[in-house]
Structures are given as C-alpha cells and as structure tokens.
C-alpha cells in the first residue's frame, strides 16, 4: 500500500513543482505607458533646433467623432517641477497616423533640457500622460528639404526604441535575435509606413551594412515587441552590433546602436524541459511494464465489452447455421490496426473451430492473406480441430479499394452470412460494406482507429470497438508482453498523469481566475510548446 501512497504524493505534489521549476520563463516585455505613451525627439534636419512630441490618441479621438477636447502640452525644466502649459493641440489639427498625433515645440532653447507631459480634460476627468525627458533640442548640421526649416505641420518618423540584440537561444548557432519596441509611426495598415531596415557592423563605430528588412506591426503581442532573427552568414563567436531604421514615406529614423551580440550553439533546449520530464515519465512507465510483463507478472486489464459482443455474435451465427465473414481492413501488414485485427481473427477462428461454424476471410493484400492463414491454422490447432482447417478459408480478392468493396458485397449478398466482422484500418469503402451487411440483416461488429470512419461504423454496426479499444482487445487476447506492457504504460504513465495534472491545475487556475492573479498565465506558460 505504501508504494501507492508514495506514487500519489509524487504525482500530486512533486510533479507539478518540478514542471514549474523546469518551464521556460518569457523575456522582459517592452516598457510603455498607456494610454498616451508619450515620446519626444530632437527634430532631425531642423537647422534652428526644436523638439517634436508624439503620443497616441485617447479612445474616442477618431475622425468619425464630431468633437473631442483639446490636448494641452505641458513643459518643465525639472522632472517633478512646476509644469506650465505652452500650447494646445485641437481636434482639427492633422494627425500623424490614424491613431497618433504630433506637436513641434520651437520655443525650446538650445542647451537646456526639458520634461514634457500631455493632459486632456475628458468631461471633467483630467487624463495625464507619462512624463518624458530629459530632452534638449540639437541644431541639425544640414537641412533635409530645400527650404531648410521643418514646417510646423510636417510629420516626422519616430525611431524604434528599446533595441536588444542577443544570441538566438536553443539553436545550433549562426543566428542572432533582435527585439525592439515598434516605432511610434508604425500604425497598422498605414500606406506610408514601409517597415524596418536592419543594419549590422562588427564594431560600434565601424561600417554598418544593411543585412535585412522586415514589415511593420508587432510580432510578439504579449510583450508588445517586434522580433527578427538575422541568419545571414553569421559566424559563431564573432561580435556584432546592430541598429534598426524605421522607414516612413521618404524619411528614415535610426534607433540607437545595440550590441555586442555573439552567436553560440546550445547543448540543451531549455524550452523543452517540461516535454522531457513528461515524456520521460511516459517512456519510463512503458518500459517498466513491458519488463514486468516479460518477467511473467500478471498485469490487470479490464474486461473489454466488445469481446463479449464478439462471442455472442459467433454464438448467434452457430445457432442459425450460417457463415461468418471476417474482414481485416484494406491496409497492409505495416499498419498496426491490421495486426490488431488479425489478433481478434485468431480468437474468432478458435470459436468457429469449437462450434464448427463456417468462416470466410476475404482479404485485399497478399501479405495479409499469408499472415491470416497462419493465424487461422494455429487457432484451429489450439482448438483441437486441425482437420477442420483448409487454405481457402482465407482468400485474396484485389488490392483496389472499391473493387474489393464490390467483391465483398457480391459474396455477402450471395452467401448471406449471419455475422460480419470489420476489424482493422478502413477508408471510405466501410460505407459500402456496412450497408450491404445491414441489408441482409447480418449482425456486424466493427473495430477501427480511423477517426473519419468511426461515426459510420457506430451508426451502421451493432457494436464498434472505438480507436484504442481495438488495440486493447488485441492486447487482452494475445497477452503478449510488449502489447500488455505498452497498454499499462500508456494508462499509468500517460492518461493517469494527464488526469491528475489536469485536476490539480484546474482547481488552482479557477482560484487564480477569481483572484484575478497572474497564476492563470503562469500555468498556461508551464505547458507551453517551445
């Protein structure tokens, strides 16, 4: 009894903790300050020097809304110092993208650093943004356009920020991952935003060359990041520096340079620890039970209801003095379902030998014919009726799917068997067979693991061994160590583990959900497939 309790404790307590320890934690997400997420940069190409602010519009500030309160721009020289309103942006002024707005502060003087804030009065409720700074205007060396001055209404592109570069984890080297917060000008479906260019160099100051480009949009929604793997002829062990340029209309904005990053190979894939643990338990229990079965220990398997139906059906055919048809599917010997079907044929043959009932086994593969003949001969031997056996009990019709179905139909209608067995792998021809069998009032017992055919067999036959029941029945009958051991191993190392983990974590997740805690996401992450 002690062993069972110990096993129970392991599954209920130790296993969940082990999974929690081994699972892969996600990387940090980008830092942003909803709803505005205010950012500011010194206006590029502005020879007189100014600061441009960019923020995301509040909910409701959309073109179709008739009116929306103004945004007031607040500025101060100290992070927590007094903020004074320097301007306000009305609903009518043009937007930068359909979800963000911009403002240019030309009154900022050189050499000073400033802090900015946005606030908006929504029917009496003041909504303030994050404080952005310090930022100081820098006189650009050369102007962009001909006229030099940057117009007040010109929209400028904001660079991607928070760029991180590191070796791509869990791979065989030769690739570096870049992650960055998308540029403020990267609005979905905007016709002007043209994605990002990736530039790479082997030293921070050295020459950078373009190594790739990618489209706009966030690629990792949970962490609000855009990520890209650079795999263009990267040497392991070599240091690389990167920066990313956002392209908008004809402008480009470069992020700061990030690096160095070195590509390396890893020996163990840290994201697949949970798979290793659970798969290890499953494999361990399968091998353990196969060895126990080989050592002759008795392994309990419950009574299979389907096998009772088999015995009854053979009995009924004997009473009526009619034949029994046995169809082992239309697949070859390399299909596990055919092998399971032939094991059940062994049992049926043993019963027909004892009751002296006529048995016919039309097959559609020559290899299956050879194997089936061996099995039927052996069963007749075990039943003490070797004389009753002859080779034409098992005969070959044709390899073709519909030809075989038409052939069997002809036989069934002519010989009117009392019972028909369909045990093995079937495809669309199962319909034709079951229908003809039904039309002559035969009892039909089916068994297959083909998902698409199960509904038809269940609806058309008197009894159906569903999926695994077919394999369990063949293990139950053959008592073969490797089949019995596998079945027990799958039950205890697979299904029992699934059931217990599911129950434990459903309870924790339900409590977590009502407590609005992070635990629900953590549980999901524990079973992530990486």
């Amino acid at each position: 009894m002690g062993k069972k309790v110990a096993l129970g404790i392991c599954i209920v307590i130790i296993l969940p903790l082990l999974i929690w320890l081994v699972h892969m934690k996600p990387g940090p997400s980008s830092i942003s300050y909803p709803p505005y997420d205010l950012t500011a940069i010194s206006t590029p190409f502005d020879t007189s020097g100014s600061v441009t602010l960019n923020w995301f519009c509040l909910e409701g500030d959309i073109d179709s809304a008739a009116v929306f309160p103004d945004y007031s721009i607040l500025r101060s020289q100290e992070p927590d110092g007094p903020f004074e309103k320097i301007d306000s942006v009305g609903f009518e002024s043009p937007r930068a993208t359909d979800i963000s707005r911009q403002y240019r502060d030309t009154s900022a003087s050189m050499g000073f650093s400033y802090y900015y804030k946005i606030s908006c009065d929504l029917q009496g409720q003041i909504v303030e943004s994050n404080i952005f700074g310090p930022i100081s205007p820098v006189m650009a060396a050369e102007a962009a356009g001909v006229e030099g001055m940057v117009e007040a209404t010109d929209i400028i592109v904001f660079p991607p920020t928070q760029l991180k570069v590191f070796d791509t984890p869990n791979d065989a080297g030769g690739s570096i991952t870049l992650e960055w917060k998308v540029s403020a000008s990267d609005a979905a479906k905007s016709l002007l935003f043209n994605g990002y260019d990736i530039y790479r160099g082997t030293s921070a100051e050295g020459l950078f060359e373009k190594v790739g480009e990618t489209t706009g949009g966030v690629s990792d929604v949970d962490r609000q990041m855009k990520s890209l793997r650079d795999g263009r002829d990267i040497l392991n062990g070599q240091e690389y520096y990167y920066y990313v340029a956002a392209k908008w209309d004809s402008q480009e904005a470069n992020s700061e340079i990030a690096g160095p990053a070195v590509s390396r190979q890893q020996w163990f894939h840290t994201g697949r620890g949970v798979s290793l643990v659970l798969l290890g338990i499953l494999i361990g229990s399968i091998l353990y039970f196969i060895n126990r079965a080989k050592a002759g220990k008795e392994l309990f398997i419950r009574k299979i209801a389907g096998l009772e139906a088999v015995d009854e059906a053979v009995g009924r055919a004997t009473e009526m003095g009619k034949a029994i048809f046995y169809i082992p599917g239309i697949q070859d010997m390399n299909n596990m379902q055919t092998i399971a079907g032939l094991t059940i044929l062994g049992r049926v043959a043993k019963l027909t030998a004892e009751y002296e009932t006529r048995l016919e086994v039309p097959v559609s593969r020559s290899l299956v014919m050879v194997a089936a003949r061996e099995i039927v001969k052996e069963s007749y031997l075990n039943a003490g009726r070797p004389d009753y056996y002859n080779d034409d009990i098992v005969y070959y019709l044709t390899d073709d799917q519909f030809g075989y179905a038409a052939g069997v139909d002809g036989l069934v209608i002519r010989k009117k068997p009392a019972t028909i067995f369909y045990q093995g792998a079937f495809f669309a021809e199962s319909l034709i067979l079951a229908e003809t069998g039904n039309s002559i009032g035969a009892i039909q017992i089916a068994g297959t693991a083909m998902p698409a055919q199960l509904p038809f067999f269940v609806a058309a036959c008197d009894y159906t061994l569903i999926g695994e029941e077919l394999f369990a029945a063949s293990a139950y009958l053959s008592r073969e160590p490797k089949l019995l051991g596998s079945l027990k191993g799958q039950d205890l190392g697979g299904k029992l583990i699934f059931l217990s983990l599911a129950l434990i974590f459903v309870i924790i997740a339900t409590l977590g959900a009502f407590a609005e805690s992070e635990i629900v996401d953590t549980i999901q992450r524990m079973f992530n497939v990486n």
Partner: protein
Amino acid sequence: MNKFWERLLAIDRRIIFVVIFLALSVPIFLQIGLPIPVTSEVQILYDALEDLSRGSRILVSCDFDPGSEPELQPMTEAAFKYFIENDLKFVIIGLWPQGPIQANRAIEDINESEDDFIVENGDTLYFGEDIVVVSGDTARYGIDFINLGFQVGQELVIQRMGTSFEATFPTDKRFGLSQKEFPIMDGIYRLADFDFVFNLSAGYPGTTEWVQFAVDRFHVPVGAGNTAVQAPLAYPYLDTGQLSGILGGMKGGAEFERLVGHKARATLFMTSQTMAHIFVMLFIVVGNLAFFATMRKSDKQGLKR
C-alpha cells in the same frame, strides 16, 4: 401497414442514387444564392490575414488532389485574389504532387489579363512579363508570387524547411531556375522567415503535420483550409490557438469568399449542398421509421450495449 414499410425498406439502392442526383443537379440550374452567415473559425483566419502588413510573405502549401478540388479550389482562388489585392506576396509549394498544378490552375482561373501566359524569350523577361491582373491589382511572377513545386517526404519536408528552405525547394517551376534568382525569395532562409503559412489540406500530410512542425517547432502562424471530412479533427488546434483559423469544406470556402468580397463557385454550390443535407436527413428519418416499424415483427435483436 407493415407491407408498406417493408417495401420501403427493400427499395433498390439505385433509386436512392437517382434521387440524390436530381436533388443536387436541380439547384445548379436555379443558381439562387443563399445568405451565408460567417462562423468564428473563418473570421479568425480572415482577421489573421488582415493583420499582415503590406509586403508580408505567405507560404501557400497546396496538399490536395483533384479528388478534393470542389472543396479546396474555390478557397484557393479566393485566397490568391485576396493576396494580390492586398499586396501580400505568396510562395506556392506542395507536399502532394498534384498541389502545385492545382495552384497553377487557380491562378489561371482568377487571372483577368488577356495576354498569353507563356513567356517567349526567357532572359530577364520573367521579372515583368508574367502579369496576373485581379480587379486592377497586378502580381508579377518571381516578385509577387512564385511556384516552387512539390517535394516528397511528408512532414520531414517541413522539418527540413525549418533549418533551410532552399535545401528543400531549390528550383522554381516556371523557369527551372534556382530560387535564389527571384526577388520574392530575398531574405528567406528558413521557414520562420515567412510571416504566415496558408495550408490547403485533404489528408496526410496536411494540417496536423503543419501544426506539429510549422507552429509547434518553428513558431510560424498557420491558417488552414480543410476538406470537411478533416475539419472536425483540426478544431482542437483552433481552441489551443495553434491554428489561426479553419476554412471547413465548401461551406468554409463560401464564407471566405463572402469576407474577401469575391462570391464565386463555393457560394453558388451552397444551394445544392443545402438540398443534399435535407435529403440525407430525410433518408435517415424514413429509414429509421421503416426499421422500427418492421422490427417488432422480425426476430433480429440488436445486441445490448
């Protein structure tokens, strides 16, 4: 009364064939369209495609044969129209040998440009000459779409694509040139460099394999168009988020055609499909009534469960 039910049960199978033949043919002549509500699994796929920014690259894997053409060809055509109209570039491959030809035929059917498709002199012309025109938008072979043909190897092809795409599909099918020569393949080294995979599947290898490898191992979003036989098996993957949408059979194709705004064959066939379902349900009801009416008399007892 029993005589009637017995004669009903003993009807020859061929009479039922004629009834179904008529039930499905008549609506084809009537050509009345029916309102088709859009289900969530199709909306999810459409939204996933809508989220792709312009110029994204989609890998279209055609894993079906003519046997599933009525279900999968209409959604293939609707998808290609959508890609061309929204400037999404698509690379055609197939894990079934018939897949790439079916894709070629889909492009032929949606192409509204009159000039002939065969390129006379090969050198640089393949960039501009092969134009597919769909409601004003153009797509050029080698720049906006390409066909890289079929590879045998079932799911191992997907696994191999994960580490090197060029090693699995080295040559294009129109010109037999190495794929490196075409601009559309710029920057595509492995499967993860694609922004989306659209898989049209009729069996094995198909959607299950694409989920097992493209999604679970290489983390590329996969949207699937399935034959209706296969669709129910894919729903668990939709629930876990492994699949970004399922188009189930001709019905899924009709809904997708409606979302894309190109109502075509799938929508047209829905009337016949509805008639087919009505008759099948009728057959089951009548068959069971006859069965129960005659059962009390006959001695055949179904085995108790």
